[in-house]
């Protein structure tokens, strides 16, 4: 049933040919491919990955050649783009958005000698590794700062889509903020988009109008920071340091620093030591970096945030440490218990105290 007309045209030969050429040239110069979901100018997610690509170029100079493809939709086009990179001799390919998971695996099956690295996914193979950042660690730090900085006890949160990554961020920030300010409340607006500056700005303004004096965002453009600057409230940068867009407003930013990871994985390919693995790194290994704390944060709060950051880095502090109840009051973590990675990876509930219901 599957193959109605067998070998109408034999595409196989070309694929094999292209592949062998790829290996030959890989010996001289390692070709590294990157697939981005957005434009590199988004100043958010794809921008940060492209900074990582530039770090690879800087580290290896002439020994590598990097290629990127931007604005690749997570639909039918992804597989073709990944395959084109694989068959044009790229030794390692980073596919940097969740929606590239299944296309990456499909292509990886056809190119067993090419190494693939998929960001934020959970399916691996012999030649497919996965990696992501523990951004919730950064959310913990900004939660502490926000809890201390808010005068109205209202923190505004601009969220994109209810995926585990975003839900985890809300929970981590809320738990941290509540730990230093029991009266704190989160107002959450879901804008159903990753990048639409106009809408993000409208949402930021709505939150400020409703009394929020500190904003957090899980969307990619700097529009919320700009709005905060204009209205004289505080905010945090997302994915990259956005201080330029709000010199007074930005308290700090959670910066995605993919550079060190990309450099080490490319090096592993060069040395022939590359293995499929799952990497989920946080502040400690430097995949998540806190931008400099603003001078507008009182010194004692700055010290507290730095201490928490360092404790997370050294492994002494876990942002999800019990006792924590779920939103409906049912227990999730017992006192002293820390969350398992598996539970965090698929997080689909708010913790107790967060208001509103999560789109199910």
């Amino acid at each position: 049933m599957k193959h109605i007309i067998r070998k109408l045209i034999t595409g196989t030969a070309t694929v094999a040919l292209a592949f062998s050429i790829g290996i030959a040239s890989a010996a001289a110069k390692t070709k590294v491919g990157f697939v981005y979901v957005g434009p590199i100018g988004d100043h958010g997610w794809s921008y940060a990955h492209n900074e990582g690509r530039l770090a690879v170029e800087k580290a290896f100079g002439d020994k590598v050649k990097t290629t990127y493809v931007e604005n690749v939709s997570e639909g039918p086009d992804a597989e073709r783009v990944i395959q084109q990179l694989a068959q044009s001799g790229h030794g390692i390919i980073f596919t940097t958005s969740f929606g590239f998971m299944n296309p990456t695996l499909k292509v990886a099956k056809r190119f067993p000698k090419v190494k693939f690295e998929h960001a934020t996914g959970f399916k691996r193979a012999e030649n497919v590794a996965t990696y992501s950042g523990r951004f919730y660690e950064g959310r913990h730090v900004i939660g502490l700062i926000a809890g201390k900085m808010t005068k109205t006890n209202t923190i505004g949160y601009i969220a994109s889509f209810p995926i585990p990554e975003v839900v985890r961020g809300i929970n981590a920030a809320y738990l941290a903020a509540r730990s230093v300010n029991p009266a704190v409340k989160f107002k959450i607006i879901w804008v159903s988009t990753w990048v639409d500056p106009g809408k993000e700005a409208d949402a930021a303004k709505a939150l400020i109008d409703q009394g929020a004096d500190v904003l957090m965002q899980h969307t990619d453009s700097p529009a919320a920071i700009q709005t905060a600057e204009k209205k004289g409230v505080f905010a945090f940068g997302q994915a990259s340091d956005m201080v330029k867009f709000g010199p007074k407003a930005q308290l700090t930013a959670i910066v995605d620093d993919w550079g060190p990871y990309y450099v080490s994985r490319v090096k592993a390919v060069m040395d022939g030591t590359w293995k499929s693995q799952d990497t989920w790194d946080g502040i400690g290994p430097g995949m998540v970096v806190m931008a400099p704390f603003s001078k507008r944060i009182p010194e004692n709060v700055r010290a507290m945030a730095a201490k928490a950051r360092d404790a997370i880095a050294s492994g002494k502090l876990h942002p999800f440490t019990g006792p924590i109840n779920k939103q409906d009051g049912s227990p999730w973590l017992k006192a002293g218990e820390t969350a398992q990675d598996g539970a965090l990876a698929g997080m689909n509930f708010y913790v107790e105290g967060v208001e509103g219901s999560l789109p199910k």
Partner: protein
Amino acid sequence: MIRLEPLKEVSKGLLYVTPAIAVIVTILLGTVMFAVLGKDPVQAISIIFLEPLTNSFAISEMIVKATPLILIGLGLSFGFRAGIWNIGAEGQFTVGALAGGAVALALHEVEGIWVLPLMCLAGILGGMAWAAIPAFLRTRFNTNEILVTLMLTYVAVLLLSVMVHGPLKDPEGLNFPESRLFHESAILPILIEETRVHIGFLVALAAVLVAWVILRHHVFGYQVKVMGQSPRAANYGGFAQQRVVWTCLMISGGLAGLAGLFEAAGPVGQLVPALPVGYGFTAIIVAFLGRLTPVGILLSGFVMALTYIGGEAAQIEMNLPSAVTGVFQGMFLFSLLGIDVLARYRIQVSRPAWAAEK
């Protein structure tokens, strides 16, 4: 003054030559653009327009990409002939994929040769249902279908998002917004091994043939043409304008829905929020580029597919920004529409002084 006079009989020869001239003009304009951007124009043009044609993988991908464009463009061409502007095929595509995909997921692990036909039927009905809204609103309330179909596209994309975040989410997918992978019986058979070319391409070819027969030999083809030329004449002609509106929107909605299902059950193999990637809009260009004729749409579907594949290749090989593809498509359509004047009108120059300046 230059005066344009409509030709009574559209010049058949020119009709086929003008697209070729448009391609040449676009390439010339593109050369200028690449030179301005500081990229080697010859290399860029050859990567975009020639290289994909010399490589069997790229050709197979062109077929994959052209399949939905041809199906949707064909459906739209009926309406465009009749002056019914369905520009929201993207929404009908999305709902078709959603409906057909929901059937696949409901029948998960159910084996049977009837699963795929059932999914196709659901896809067609889904697209039709979405197109029925503007059809109803136009015939009953006289509401402009251009805007309604367009607004419904945004709604459809959000609806898909709600569904893959909720009821259709993969139960083992760690809460990520996508459905499970369709099972074997719900995946379109592959036509050419080692490629993604699926049986949907044969359906598209069949649809081209059927459309050609209808337009040539069926009374409906005649009605559509008359209505496009003069809606009033259509009323005098004794057939109801309303029926033509309904039929055109059902054809375009159904084919767009089927194309959506083909994408979900073909190259993608599951429902994902980013399934709609603009085929519904590109297909409008395809329809015009193909001069609203079935064979023309078949060819123009491939030309548009080529610009996508070539654009990607140019990104990979020359580091050109992805925006180049859109600029190219725009220039292409501009040239075609502009040059079209040669085929449809006779240019009469009555005051050469002004004409010479031009």
